Structure formats: structure tokens, C-alpha cells
């Protein structure tokens, strides 16, 4: 098991380098350069000034030289400085955004799991009942309704008409002078709308998946055996069926790891939440290469690690897999 793990970990390095090479090339192939984005169509800027700025960012060198110097810095875990006019270290920009996105996504994910799993099980157990159909309609409604539209409606209702909740942002003005409890309450009020809308929108996938695996398990012979043994329906479903149906969810969870640091641009824009989605979008629009590369590399790393964790988790949970690889 240990050697297997080590082997997998070592394999990650060439994979990451490959991914970074592809992304580096693609982002440089996109028309426009950071300097142009900042200076184009501005009468006050001379061609010489533009050239000086290109030199400053090292954009005058051939692409492979730029890539190699980037790679050299990355080897020392130095993400470099942003090409935006503030020139701040990329890692600093990412660091100040990650907590918000991460906590929002973790809360949403926990809520999503907490709701989607029981919903899925319920729908499977009472397959084709009226309840099952109602659930289907409900989760697909969440899936189909454009989040931004729902968000705007709810913001208008609770923020403007009723005045119960703040419209957007994370903190009220002057919240820094509040005590810890009041401050948390203020934050919770701000998070209520975005978190519930995000959860509502993502219920469909997880709950349908849960329903399908649960149905599959419920048709197995050992469930029939358990029922024949005279076990109560509750024990049959939660002890025998549910645990086996949970297995595939581990894979899903592994896949959702990189998603935890990625945010939705539209969502963050509407709620004025300073998260990773906005940062990445601004980076791409401004052709801020170091920032874009930094976020992509972290995302790629997390994806690979997520896959690895899913495999390991699977092996731990399912003896057949564990022993098969032994």
C-alpha cells in the first residue's frame, strides 16, 4: 500500500508539468497581452512606454524562455508577481480569496450532502410514488432555474422589499466594531442567501446519483435475504443497503475537491463575494499570466490529489479493492 501510494505521488510531478505546459501555451495563444490590456487606446501612452512595460514583464523573450523561468520559480514554490498594475505576489492574492470561497463551498457541500443523501434514499425507497415525483421536480427545478435569476429575485424580496437580509457582500458596514457573536450573526445573515441558492442549484446531481445507486443496491439478492430474515425495513435500508450505496459517493467527493477552491463568477459577481471565481476571471480578462497559471496549477494539483484520495478512500472502504491490489 505504501509503495503504491509513493508511486502514485511521484507520478503526479510529470503530470503537473505536462498540464502546466499545456495551459501556459494556451493562455499565451489567446490574443492580447497584459500590457496591451492596460495600455491600448490610451492616447497618453507612447509605443516606447509600452515596449518598456513588455520588457519589465519579460514578455519580449521567446515563449519557451518565459516558460522555463516560470517553471524554475515554481520549483521553488514561488508563484511570482501578478502582471496587474499592483504587482503583488500571486500567492498573496490567492491566499486572501481562498478562505471565503473555501468556507462557502464547504458549507454548501455539507448542506448538499446532508440534503441530497436523504432525498435520494427516500426517492429510491419509495420509487415512482408521488413523493418521488415531487422530489424529482423539485431538484430539477433547482438544476434548471438560472442561479443569477433566482438570486436577483430573492435579493429583491428579502433585501429590498422585506429588509430582512442584506442584499450582498459579506459584512455590514461597521461590523468590525461588533462583538464576536454579533459579528458571526451578521456574517451568517450575509451567507444565508448565497449558500441556500448554491445548494438548491446543486441538489439534483448528487440526489439523482444517490437514488440510482440505492436502487441498484436494493435489487441485490442480499437485500432480499435480509428482508426474508425478517429484519425491520429500517435496518435493511440504513444498515445494509445504504452503506453499500455510499461507496460510489466517495469517488464523487474526491472529484469535488478541486471544486472547493473554484468559485462561480456569475454567482460571486451578483452577491459581491470576493472569491476565486472573480479573481480567475479578472486574471483571464487582464491576461495576467502568473495569476492564471497559479490558480490553474493549484486546481490541477488538487484534482490529481482528489483522484488519488478517492482511490485510496475506495480501497479503504472496500476490502475487495484493497486486497485485489494488496
Amino acid at each position: 500500500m505504501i509503495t503504491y501510494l509513493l508511486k502514485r505521488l511521484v507520478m503526479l510531478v510529470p503530470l503537473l508539468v505536462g498540464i502546466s505546459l499545456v495551459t501556459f501555451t494556451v493562455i499565451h495563444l489567446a490574443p492580447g497581452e497584459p500590457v496591451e490590456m492596460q495600455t491600448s487606446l490610451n492616447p497618453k501612452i507612447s509605443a516606447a512606454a509600452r515596449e518598456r512595460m513588455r520588457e519589465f514583464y519579460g514578455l519580449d523573450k521567446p515563449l519557451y524562455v518565459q516558460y522555463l523561468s516560470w517553471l524554475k520559480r515554481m520549483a521553488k514554490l514561488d508563484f511570482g508577481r501578478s502582471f496587474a498594475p499592483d504587482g503583488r505576489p500571486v500567492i498573496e492574492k490567492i491566499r486572501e480569496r481562498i478562505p471565503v470561497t473555501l468556507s462557502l463551498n464547504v458549507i454548501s457541500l455539507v448542506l448538499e450532502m446532508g440534503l441530497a443523501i436523504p432525498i435520494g434514499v427516500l426517492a429510491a425507497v419509495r420509487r415512482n410514488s408521488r413523493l418521488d415525483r415531487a422530489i424529482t421536480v423539485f431538484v430539477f427545478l433547482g438544476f434548471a432555474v438560472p442561479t443569477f435569476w433566482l438570486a436577483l429575485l430573492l435579493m429583491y424580496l428579502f433585501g429590498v422589499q422585506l429588509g430582512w437580509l442584506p442584499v450582498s457582500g459579506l459584512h455590514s458596514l461597521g461590523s468590525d466594531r461588533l462583538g464576536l457573536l454579533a459579528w458571526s450573526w451578521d456574517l451568517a445573515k450575509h451567507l444565508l442567501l448565497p449558500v441556500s441558492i448554491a445548494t438548491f442549484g446543486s441538489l439534483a446531481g448528487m440526489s439523482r446519483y444517490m437514488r440510482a445507486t440505492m436502487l441498484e443496491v436494493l435489487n441485490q439478492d442480499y437485500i432480499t435475504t435480509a428482508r426474508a430474515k425478517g429484519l425491520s425495513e429500517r435496518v435493511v435500508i440504513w444498515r445494509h443497503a445504504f452503506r453499500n450505496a455510499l461507496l460510489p459517493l466517495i469517488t464523487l467527493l474526491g472529484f469535488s475537491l478541486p471544486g472547493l477552491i473554484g468559485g462561480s463568477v456569475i454567482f460571486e459577481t451578483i452577491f459581491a463575494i470576493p472569491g476565486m471565481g472573480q479573481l480567475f476571471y479578472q486574471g483571464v480578462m487582464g491576461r495576467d499570466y502568473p495569476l492564471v497559471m497559479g490558480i490553474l496549477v493549484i486546481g490541477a494539483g488538487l484534482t490529481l490529489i482528489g483522484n488519488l484520495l478517492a482511490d485510496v478512500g475506495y480501497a479503504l472502504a472496500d476490502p475487495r479493492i484493497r486486497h485485489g491490489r494488496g
Partner: protein
Amino acid sequence: MPGRWFAALLFCCILAGCNGDKPQERRISRSSGPPAYGDAIVVGSIGEPSTLIPLLATDSASFDIAGLVYNGLVRYDKNLKLEGDLARSWDVSPDGLTITFHLRRGVKWQDGVEFTSRDVLYTYRVTIDPKTPTAYSGDFKQVKTAEAPDPYTFRVTYARPFAPALASWGNAILPAHLLEGKDITKSDLSRHPVGTGPYRFKEWVPGQKLVLESYHDYYEGRPYIDRYVYRIIPDSSTMYMELKAGSLDRMGLTPVQYARQTTSREFLDRFNKFRYPASGYTFLGYNLRNPLFSDRRVRQALTSAIDKKEIVQGVLLGMGQVARGPYKPGTWAYDPHIHDFDYDPARAVRLLAEAGWQRNGDGIMEKNGRPFQFTILTNQGNDQRLRTAQIIQWRLKQIGIDVKIRVVEWASFLKNFVDTGNFEALVLGWTISPDPDLYDVWDSSKTGPKELNFVGFKNSEVDRLIAEGRTTFDQGKRRRCYWRIQEILAKEQPYTFLYVPDELPVVSARFHGIRPAPAGIDYNFIRWYVPKEGQLYQ
């Protein structure tokens, strides 16, 4: 059952959405009273500043903040005339080559150090330093020598008289004592600026807000409003809801919001709306290198076939005015008597016939069997420009011209089309700077790749007039040059100048002392106040 609960909720909220305006509980008092210190103003912004060292910034959000923290040597007053700021006064030598600035005494940086000519000299030097990645070295490069003979005098000499030079000294002056000998690109001042201006930096919560506090030792006196909170709200509908919910005091409205969504009695009770021409215009530019547009009569015909008033109505809901040239109506360089080609489709057809274009049996404009068709290019993300292009498309179709519209993402719009001259016509906008110099956009030396005269306009008389206008400080002489240029542009129609939109700011009614002027409303921000009993924040 969460499902039922949620469906009920959704239903309620749709109902509420149809409910229209409901009177707000929170009422803002319009109470009048004497000017008083205190309160805060919360301003909404779509973008976040990039850096608070204005020398390195190119975005408007950065300048919103920097404008309150820093001063230049000169500035534009409420009538868009240059006046002294950190410079008490200035003299221009009779040959127009030397400008001597007499600096204000007793001005203090916000950290207590005195402001002197050393700061000005430093700002000049760091701007032209090749290691500084700044966009603003162009005008300063014209300077031959710069010297600071004593702490309160600063003198620059130019190789040739250069009228836009004076305005370039409106750039923010940076604190030499904090920056000298350091790498400006890594300076902490980009996040914690120290200036001489009316507001000092307090905090910046990335992605959320910036807070400034009034600077009590400001040389023009302590500003009335104690705090300036700049909230970053990237979506304009969200911003509008925040305004209605009472958590924003100021934002810029869109024409639809101004004309349709902010007209209720309740809204007008709580907010004051303002409206004045913005400093910019939108145009339809023709690629003059393209044989299709090389004939002046064709361009005149196209302008005659476009109803500019209808575009102002349709795109801006009337919140703007028709543009006839590159200047803002009402400023000294603007020629109010300009002869323009008003909407007249019959004249358009006549002019096209003179140029050899005839309508064939299907009503399509043709010349030697080739139909008149071209593509209007515009950038993605600007609805007003797209709608403008659509109205033009519809109007030109009526005289048998087939127009296609192509919308391209900004970066590739510039790189693949504008910079390379690879376009037929485009809808774009220019900012109108208070100094009327037209060199960069209209001089024939600026037609190269990546330069701003991308339509390729070449006219020797215009070149001569531009040169004359920028080498004299005499406003009367300059005006004559620019009026003549407007006449030529109106005849040549290298662009169809379309409209100058209106700026539509809205400010909470609790703020008093706002006096709209040609420069807008912000020029006297430090004199805005909230009477004691109307103050909302402590």
C-alpha cells in the same frame, strides 16, 4: 417537507417581484441645517482599484481613490479651466518654453512631513525612469530640463512650446521621502497610500471595500464628511438593489434605471438624481484605407442615412446628445456652429449616386455589379455599442446597404482587428480629455500599427492645425485651430460622430452642498455635508 416549503417561498417571491414599489420603512431625512462635520458616504463601484500609486494605475477605480488621496500641481476647476492645486500659481516664459511653478507653503503629507519641490522633482524623475512600468511618461518626456531651485519653486523647460504640458502636471505628486531610493513597483504605498489630499487611507478589505478618513490638516480645510467608503459591487443590478435597500449612498445609474426605475415619489424623496454630459463620445469609424470608404461622398451619405437623434433615444433613452465632432458640447474648444449632415436619406441616395452607387431592381445599392456591404465591428460587453450598431444596420438597410455586425472580445478586438487595421467599420468610443489636443487620434503620423489613428485619416491641413494648436498657450489662437479642424472633420466624415452620453449619478438626499457644474458634481466633494440631525453613521 423542504420541497413544498421552497415552492411556497418561490411563489411568494415571484408575487413580491410583481408588487412594485412599496414605501420603505427607513426614511432618510431631507432636513436642512448648517454644515456639520461627521457621517460617512458609501459609494458603489463595479471595479476594484488595482494599485493606489496612480503612476502605475490605468483603471478608473484606482483614480477614484487616488483622486481623493493625492494632489497634482494643477487641476481642472468646476468650469474645466486649469487652476493651481499644490502649485499656488505658475508662469509661462514669453517663448513658451519654460514653466515655473510656485508651490504652496505649509502643505503637509498625511504623515506630517512637509511637501516641497523635492517631491515634484522625484515624481518627474520616477515617471521618466525607464525602470518604472508607467503609462504616463509620454508628456514628461518632452521636458528638456527639470529643476528645483528652492523648496517652493519648480521649473521645467521644454525643447518646443507644448500646450498640453500644463495639464500633464495635474498628475499626482508622490511623497519623495517614502519612495526615494526604493523600487516603486514593490512599494507598500500601492496598498497604503500617503498623499497630500483631503482623505487619508484607512483600510482596504480586498474584493469588498476601501475606507478613507478625512484628513484634518488638508490645506483647503477639513472635509465635512468624515469617512468615504468605497464598496466593490461588480454587478449593476445588485448595486441598484443595495442603493434601494439604503446601504449605498451613491452610484452611477444606467439610462434605463434613470428614466424608468427611479421615478417613484418614494425614490425621489430619498435620493437626488443628477444629469450632465459625460466626457466621452461614441462613433462609427470607417477604415479609410478601404476603397469602399475612400470617397468622401460615400461617408457623407452614410452619415446622412443615420438618424443620430433616434440612436440617442433608442440606446440612451434620450440621456445624451448628438455628437458632431470630437469635443464635448459647451467646452471652449467645441464649435457650436458646426455644419453637420443631419438625417436625410434622400441626400444619402443622391450622394451615393454621385459616387457611382445605384440601387438595382432588388433595391440593393450596387456599383459595377458589386453590392454595397460591409461589417461593423464592436467589442463584447458593451450593450450600448451593440444596440447602436443594430440601429445603424437597420437604417442603412433602408437605402439598400447590407451591414453585418460582429461582436468580438476586447483583447482580440484590439489585437486582431484594430491594431492591424483589419476592419471595415467599427463602433467605439473615445474619452474627451479637457485639453483639446488631437495629436494622437487625428495626426497623420499616428496611422501606424497599434497607433490610435487606426482609421488612417490623413489631412495635411489638420496636421498643421494640430501642430499649431499644441505649440501655443493662447486660448484664442488654439480655439481657432480646433474650430477649423472640426469644420474639416465635419466635411470629411472620417467618423460618423454619434453621441455624447450623459453621466447619471444618484446621491442620497441627506447630502447637501452638491453644486452641479460643467465638471460634474465631484469637484467640491470636500464641501458636501450632512446636517447634524440627518447623519446616519457615526
